[in-house]
């Protein structure tokens, strides 16, 4: 998608891809035939710049045709760079400005709690995003109102726009801060599907809101993109760059999983 669109943020998208896959593959209860089903779990991508990951997951789950993914970033497309709910079935919230998603998710979880509904609300945040003060406002409020039906997943790839998080505005001790805010705090390998599933299933029924700090690698799966801030901006160019990236990802494909249409040129 980022190759066709010449779009940014491939590093962030690969970083969060496993988290998104685990959510949409089974943890979250969603229904492609009835995207607005009241009992669905809500998934909010607060780090909206990784919207391609959500679009891809929704298409793979049958919310819309996989072929449409090729229109990402294109003139007139509904699949904007930052994730958009307008006309896209399955997207709960348009984001793009950081620091909004956890607050909206908290409001959704609070409303569900008031109405004694059983679904959960998942919010996926970036770690750099946690520079935003509103993230911590939401962390206070969600804890105060014991929103056990709220799960924040932080894509903790330790990099942000210009540099490493620790060199930018230090977040550590990150998990301790979350614990101090009263959250059920779980640290997990964000590329280990089994560990993610266990964490996301295990927190069901928690009294406190849960934060899953998912240790990830920016650009995961493509050797020359991993841990390289350049790929927050650069898109995989035609030729060797794109071919090598796809070849590396293909090589990691589990047995029996076929290619989707969009990157079969």
């Amino acid at each position, binding site marked *: 998608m980022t190759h066709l669109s010449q779009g940014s943020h491939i590093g962030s998208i690969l970083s969060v891809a496993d988290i998104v896959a685990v959510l949409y593959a089974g943890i979250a209860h969603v229904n492609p035939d009835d995207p607005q089903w009241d009992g669905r779990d809500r998934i909010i991508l607060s780090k909206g710049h990784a919207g391609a990951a959500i679009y891809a997951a929704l298409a793979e789950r049958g919310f819309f045709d996989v072929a449409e993914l090729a229109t990402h970033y294109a003139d007139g497309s509904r699949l904007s760079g930052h994730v958009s709910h307008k006309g896209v079935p399955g997207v*709960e*919230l348009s984001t793009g400005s950081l620091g909004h998603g956890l*607050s*909206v998710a908290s*409001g*959704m979880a*609070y*409303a569900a709690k008031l109405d004694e509904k059983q679904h959960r609300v998942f919010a996926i945040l970036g770690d750099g995003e946690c520079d935003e003060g509103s993230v911590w406002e*939401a962390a206070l*409020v969600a804890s105060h109102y014991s929103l056990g039906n709220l799960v924040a997943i932080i894509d903790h790839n330790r990099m942000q726009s210009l540099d490493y998080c620790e060199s930018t505005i230090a977040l550590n001790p990150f998990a301790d801060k979350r614990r101090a805010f009263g959250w059920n705090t779980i640290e997990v390998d964000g590329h280990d599907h089994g560990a993610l599933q266990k964490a996301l299933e295990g927190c069901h029924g928690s009294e406190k809101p849960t934060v899953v700090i998912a240790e990830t690698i920016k650009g995961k799966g493509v050797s020359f993109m991993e841990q390289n801030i350049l790929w927050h901006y650069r898109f995989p160019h035609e030729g060797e760059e794109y071919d090598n990236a796809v070849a590396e990802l293909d090589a990691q494909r589990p047995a029996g999983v076929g290619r989707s249409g969009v990157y079969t040129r």
Partner: protein
Amino acid sequence: MRDRFVSTLMGLAAKDSNVHLITGDLGFGVLKPFWEQFPKQFTNAGIAEQNMTSFAAGMALEGKTVFTYSIGNFPTLRAIEQIRNDCAYHEANVKIVCVGGGFVYGALGMSHHATEDLAIMRALPNVTVVAPADADQAQLATEAIYAQPGTCYLRLGRGGEPKLHDLSGDFQIGKAVPVFEGADIALLFTGAIGDEVLEARTLLADQGIDAAVISFPTLKPLDIDAVVELAARFDIMASVEEHSVLGGLGGAIAEILAELPRPQARLVRIGLNDQYSSIVGTQKYLRGEYGMSARAIAERVGEALDG
């Protein structure tokens, strides 16, 4: 006006359990009747307006009609991007309520003077902007924004605004309300400054000038037909607002006049003249200092007639 808003909202909350009031930790002595009677429909979001606003959007997307409550610039400017992205873009049923439009908290200083809120809120698509003139209009406005789906901004004064002449009739979002007929000039106002306007009308009458007075409780959508009709009927019209002359009622009227086929009425914009209010005092005092007292209104209009 403030108390009437609360009593009206209590009536709505009694009928509709999806009505929810969130405060940004303000409303001491004002909201108490609400939280005592409707504890399950009331939430204190703390001193955190950005989160409060997005949180309200999240609740609204789940089917609630959420009123966020704070004073001055806090529910609007402090959370403007949350209003834009999370409320307005998602057409969320969030009603943003400000107590203390203009110089209500005059002695507290410029941080508490809401003097650009109307312009800023009016610039946002999908936001209805309402600024009632007195308690009766505040009640009708509260009921109207409750009934209207989507994001609304309700700008209130504080309390004790005098009851204006006959504003208790039919209230419709987007409709101006004629208060007094007049033959010579038209005074158009929005919000809680109607008492100055009516007093100015009396001062003008003493000089033999017969002023019509029209209340514009809805700033967006503005009653374009009313403006066009007044512009055709009068040579001079004045906009009066406890707000900057940029982008509020005066700005909105100027936009309409500029696009009319031929120049019609001349517009005198009365309000805060693109500056911050750096001195303090009572609301009445500051209106005088910044050129929107009854006397200042009468003088500006008189000059325009002479000019």
